[in-house]
């Protein structure tokens, strides 16, 4: 038996998903046309395009499902498990199944766990956390959580109580480095060498820099302030961001 079937036992069907085979196939076709059948990749109805032919290749459901979800490292085949929502993912797998004569399971949506869904304010906070139009003046320039952002700071271990606490957050880990006649705020990564490594916080985005031992000296404290980084966010924005962090950070 396929592993997917085993999950059936514990899960209930979800009403929002198409419940019958034609609806499933039509959704799968739609996702396929948008995500797979583009000129750089697979062709219409599984014909060869930039990527190999998919129709009548003798693929089984397990292979198709695995490949669609995880991609093929080192090739142009991306991991759609990371980008397609669950319903689209299962529909497109069913569609590619059909191109290979595999009858899709009667209701594949019932066999998959429902992914975590954020409440609306947390979802809004997630968007603000990484909002592209803010340039580098956004949380995700230094923080990575829930699959987005650049991990400059350590992972969140707790979430500040309120907006005032978030703005006033103390950052004793930020020090002042002096190197090559220049003093600047840094987040040290490795102070003992032989290669000293630090994040230079003088400008955004932070730069990971390496120095020979003895080329750089450190002093506790800095003029760097978390509050300055948050200047572009309103209190309302930060409330939503805190709701997002509360939803995803596990203390």
């Amino acid at each position, binding site marked *: 038996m396929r592993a997917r079937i085993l999950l059936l036992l514990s899960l209930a069907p979800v009403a929002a998903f198409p419940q019958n085979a034609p609806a499933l196939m039509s959704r799968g076709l739609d996702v396929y*046309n*948008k*995500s797979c*059948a*583009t*000129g*750089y*990749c697979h*062709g*219409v109805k599984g*014909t*060869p*395009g*930039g*990527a*190999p032919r998919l129709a009548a290749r003798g693929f089984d459901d397990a292979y198709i499902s695995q490949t669609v979800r*995880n*991609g*093929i*490292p*080192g*090739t*142009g*085949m*991306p*991991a759609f498990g990371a*980008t397609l929502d669950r319903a689209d993912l299962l529909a497109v797998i069913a569609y590619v199944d059909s191109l290979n004569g595999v009858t899709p399971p009667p209701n594949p949506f019932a066999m998959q766990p429902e992914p975590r869904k954020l409440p609306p304010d947390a979802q809004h906070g997630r968007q603000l956390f*990484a909002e*592209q*139009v803010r*340039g*580098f003046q956004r949380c*995700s320039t230094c923080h990575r959580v829930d*699959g*987005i*952002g*650049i991990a400059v700071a350590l992972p969140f271990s707790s979430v500040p109580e309120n907006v005032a606490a978030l703005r006033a957050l103390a950052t004793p880990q930020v020090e002042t480095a002096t190197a090559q006649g*220049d003093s600047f705020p840094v987040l040290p990564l490795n102070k003992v060498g032989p*290669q000293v490594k630090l994040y*230079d916080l*003088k*400008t*955004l*985005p*932070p*730069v*990971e*820099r*390496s120095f020979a031992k003895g080329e750089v000296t450190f002093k506790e404290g800095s003029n760097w302030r978390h509050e300055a980084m948050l200047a572009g966010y309103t209190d309302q924005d930060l409330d939503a961001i805190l709701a997002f962090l509360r939803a995803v950070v596990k203390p």
Partner: protein
Amino acid sequence: MKKRFLLPLFALLSAILTAPARAQDGATTANWPSYGGTDFAWRYSALDQINTSNVKKLVPVWQFQTGDYTQGLQSTPIVIDGVLYLSTTHSQVFALDAVTGKMLWQYKYPMPRGAGGNIQNRGLAVGGGKVYVGTYDDYVVAIDQKTGAEAWKVAIADSSQCGCSITSAPLLVKDKVVVGIAGGDSAFRGFITAMDAKTGRLAWRFYTIPAPGEKGNETWKGDSWKYGGGATWMTGSFDPALNLVYWGTGNAASDMYAGDRYSGEGEGANLYTGSVVALDADTGKLKWYYQEIPKDVWDYDSAYECLLIDRQVRGVLRKLLVHINKSGYAWVLDRTNGEFLGAYPIVDNHTWLTGMTEDGKILGRIEPVEDKPTLICPGPDGGKSWNQVAYSPRTGLMYTPTLEICSDSVAREQTPVEGRGFLGGTWSHRGPANGPAYSHIDAYDPVTGKRVWSMRYKYALLASMLTTAGDLVFTGDPEGNFFALDARTGQKLWSFQTGAGHRGSAISYSVNGRQFIATPTGWGSIAGRALTSIWPEAENFRLGSTLMVFALPEDTK
């Protein structure tokens, strides 16, 4: 429709060209210091030890296998003072003795696990004691030129969000390293970023799509500017006398459906996509722009190289920028102010327009529609791919690799999701209406568009051109042949089977008076695979990632 000259008067007047002045501005000599040879992007070497009379004696002298072969080798090596620097698709960097191929150091970028997609890296910048390389996950890395140790690295975008990646070589401009970014087929907003070369600190960023309140934003409907494309996925050029950095900007997104982004307001459409932009090298401020493809619905991607030459136009010596995009046309601009001086087709098949006015406006656009496939030439692969032209000041000719590949295209309205695919349509590859797809190498007068010679080839040519003062043109084909043509006649003078298809950019350099020709070999890439739908036998073009280096035998003088 198939007129060679859109501007007959212009062509006639500029036919009375004299020999180009300041001929050596864009020439390399012993070193190959920059991605395009020099920052003028000529891909021309002034070395002439290897020439039309002795090229048939050329032999391989060393080769270097990088081991990073799954996506081919698209790089341009850099050579400085007898050391050759080479990057591979996964942003590994090698420093090699340019005479023997002996490895001096290796830098292995820690590519994130599971990194898939269209991983590419097309080259490096070297200078000031550092080697600069971009990565698939949007880091720019500075490496110590002597030791290969990492000096700094910085993420210029969040690859888990933006659907973008750095595939092109950085350009070193005075004390800054300037980098473009790929991602214009995703819901993404393009930019060019400059960092302090010593510290990696941000110096400036230019967004190719203006934000609300900035001039040009009115050419976008609603919020479409946020995800409007305009990727900067190839390397630009730099003119130190004008202190201007030139960069091509890619297609607007979604690629094939403009209904949600075209506002119909302002000058141009969907600025500054499909354009050449000239930026102040110190501040990144826009000095001028020229939009070649307003309201792009063909993925015509003006992101390619900017060839900087000084030539007579209508009897006046002018500073020019010659620029080709995927549309199969070449534009001739005044690079001091962006003035349009002319445009000419470089492909035989160009059905997307019926002509162009004397001031460069496109007439009779044929656009993809939603309900049925439309034959469009060139297709989204382009009348030329990113592989670059070369220009010889000796012959005064520009050498172009050109594709005659068309498409049956269908537009489709699509809602953008940040960082995800945003093509707004689909297409299949095909040949022109009257026969199979093919490609050719041509020699053009770059000002008038007069074609001096042409060599036809049955598959797609996807390697760059190199030309030398030995009056030779070098390039490779997907079947593995690396060959030399007479730059004046196009006659094939020498050919060598390297064992794997060509997708990179050859260079020339010399050490202790001996001239070398180096070429990357190794098929791969998304465009390479796309060819199988036209030529099934393209499945068999061989992958690889090897640098092959040729010279005359030591006793040849």
